[in-house]
Every structure is written in C-alpha cells, then in structure tokens.
C-alpha cells in the first residue's frame, strides 16, 4: 500500500508542475479566434439582416412571377372600377381615357333654373361629388343650364345640385323614391350605342 501511495503522489506532483508556454501563445490563440466566423444568432432580426445566398429554381421564379401578375391584374381591375367614379385629378385622367371606351356614352343633362348661380350634376357615375369638374353645368342663357358628360352604360341614379345646397330632381327623367335619405333621385338608363 505504501508503494502505491508513493506512486500516486509522484503522478500528482508531475501533473501539478507548470507547463512552460511561449510568450506568443496568447497572441496566436486570439488571432485564430478572430479568424473564426461570427456566431450566428437565431431570431427574426438576425435572419432578416444577415446576408445569405439564396438559390432559386426556375420553377420558383415562375410561380412568383405568375402570382405577381395575378395580384397586379386584380388590383388594376379594382382600381378601374373605383377610379372611374372618383374625383381626384389622377382619377379624372383615367376617367377621360375610359370615356372613349364602348362602355360609356355621352349624356346631356339639362335643367331650367333661372335664379341659379351654379348647377352641377351628381350621381352614382361620379361618386355623388358636386365638385366633380366634368359635371359642372354651364349657363346657356335664358335660365337653361346644361352639361354633356360621359356616363357608363347601365342603370344610374342622379340629381342636380343648385348653388351647392338645393337638390333638384330632373323634371325630364323618371323619378325614384328614396327611402334612405329622403331626397328623391332621377333615374337614367344608358344603353350601348347600336
């Protein structure tokens, strides 16, 4: 047992003896560490900001392009429906372009209002916007006001607005009872030109 103890003590002493290290060892270790790639953190931000190389097959590009076309077409169709009736300058420009299509006809609106200072036409074809530039009637003399404007083919409701405040239905057109807002409208059916 004594010999064994002595052997163990010798081993322990040998292991505890300091190892001689060259003075440049620390520098070499740190240089190696700095050369290693940075630690990649997980999470949305690091995934978004870390540069990555992505390889995409032609099929994936095709899918992406097709979906872009579909959504662009949907957006354009929706915009054309809504902007046709809007009153912004951009929409007006589009409206004028559309006016030449086969789906709109020029319609003359006439109102006799000798005491009026301003007459405009509002309806579902111009978003009920009394300030719409294309639907401002002009005084032709003798109390006759008129405007000719493009109106989409279909069944529409409209009214005249006199002096920005008084709603007047067209005496020359069918009237429609308005149970919702209490002011009767006129009706017009614009047909496709034969």
């Amino acid at each position: 047992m004594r010999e064994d103890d002595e052997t163990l003590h010798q081993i322990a002493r040998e292991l505890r003896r300091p190892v001689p290290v060259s003075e440049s060892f620390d520098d070499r270790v740190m240089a190696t560490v700095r050369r290693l790639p940075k630690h990649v953190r997980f999470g949305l931000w690091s995934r978004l900001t870390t540069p990555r190389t992505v390889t995409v097959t032609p099929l994936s590009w095709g899918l992406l392009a097709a979906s872009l076309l579909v959504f662009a077409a949907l957006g354009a169709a929706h915009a054309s429906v809504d902007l046709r009736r809007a009153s912004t300058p951009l929409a007006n420009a589009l409206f004028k372009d559309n006016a030449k299509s086969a789906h709109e006809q020029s319609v003359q609106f006439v109102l006799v209002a000798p005491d009026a200072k301003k007459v405009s036409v509002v309806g579902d074809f111009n978003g009920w916007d009394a300030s719409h530039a294309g639907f401002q009637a002009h005084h032709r003399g003798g109390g006759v006001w008129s405007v000719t404007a493009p109106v989409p083919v279909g069944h529409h409701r409209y009214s005249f607005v006199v002096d920005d405040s008084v709603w007047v239905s067209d005496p020359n057109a069918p009237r429609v009872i308005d149970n919702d807002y209490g002011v009767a409208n006129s009706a017009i059916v614009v047909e496709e030109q034969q």
Partner: protein
Amino acid sequence: MSRAGDALRAIAALALFSVPLLSQDPRLKTRLDHPTFVAVSALVDSARVAKLPTAPLVDKALEGAAKGSDGAKIVTAVKQLSVRMGSAKHVLGSSASADEIKSAAGAMDAGLSEHDLARLHAAGGKRPITMPLAVVSDLIAQSVPIPTVTDLVLQLVKSHVPDRSLTLLQRNVRTDVERGADPTVAATTRVRGLLVSAANPPAKPKE
C-alpha cells in the same frame, strides 16, 4: 429553409398585403367619418365575400355623405341595400349582372315583393330584366299601385317589348300625368298600346 418554402412564403406575403388594398375605396375614407367608414367598409367586405356587387354599396354611402346624412343613417342605408341585393341575387340567380341586381334592389326598395320579382324573372327567361325593373320603380314612384305595376310590366316582359319602347313608355306616362291624367289610367292605356304594337309589328316595306 427550402427554396419552395421561400417561394410559398413570398406568395403568401403578396396575398396578405393585397387584400387590404382591394377592400378599401379611398373615397369612403375621405368622405365619411371614421366610425361610419369602418362600419361601411365591413359591410362592403361582407358583400364582396357573398359575391354581391360592391360598387352600389359604396355609391350609397357616398350619396348619403353628399346629402348630409348622419353616419347611422348611412350605415343603415348601406346595410339595407346589401340585404336587398342579396335577396335579388337569390331570386335572379348567379348569372345576374351587377346592373340587374342593382335594378332589382331598387325596385324592391320601391315596394316590389320578392315573389313578384321571381315572376318577372321567370317571364323574362334568359333575357335580363334590368329595364323592366326600372319601369317598375318609375311607375311606383308615379303613384301607380304596386299590383297594377307588376301586372302591367309582367305583360310587357312576356310580350318581349324592347327596352327602347319601355323608355318611351316611361316618358309618355310622365307627360300624361303632368298634363293631369290619373297615373294608373295613363300607365294602363300606354301599356295596352305597346302590347297591341308588339302583337302587330309593322310590315316591312317592299323593296
């Protein structure tokens, strides 16, 4: 991350960002107060899901704003129109055009029942009844009783009277009423005249 997964995520993101763009009409936001805008937008979105035409709903809201109605009244009007259009589409079928549905909703607002709308639709066959429905709204507005209007327009539809003649009919009845005629008598007389003309079309001149 797989390449197919990347492509699918891109498509999903496009779909996600496209939906709000499609469902908003910029005029609603600028011309309605915020609570009304939110309520009307929800109704328009619901109509879109139900495959109903949405432009008439937007127009109804804009009409209310132009007429100075309060938000509650606008929302009620849009909702009622949506319900009427739903009923009209149910009767007219999925092949009905937006204009026909809108016209039917207008006639129902004037007082035409769903049952009578179905009778007119059946009489018209595959032919759209947009114009006859406009005549229904017009004659009811001129104080002709609804049962009389329904019977008269039903006869016109069955006789395939062309839309141009219906436009003329409205004008003639209006003129008669302005000159003092009883609306029912004027409408009945003018419709009879049209039916006789339709039954005996003028002979084509010989060449």
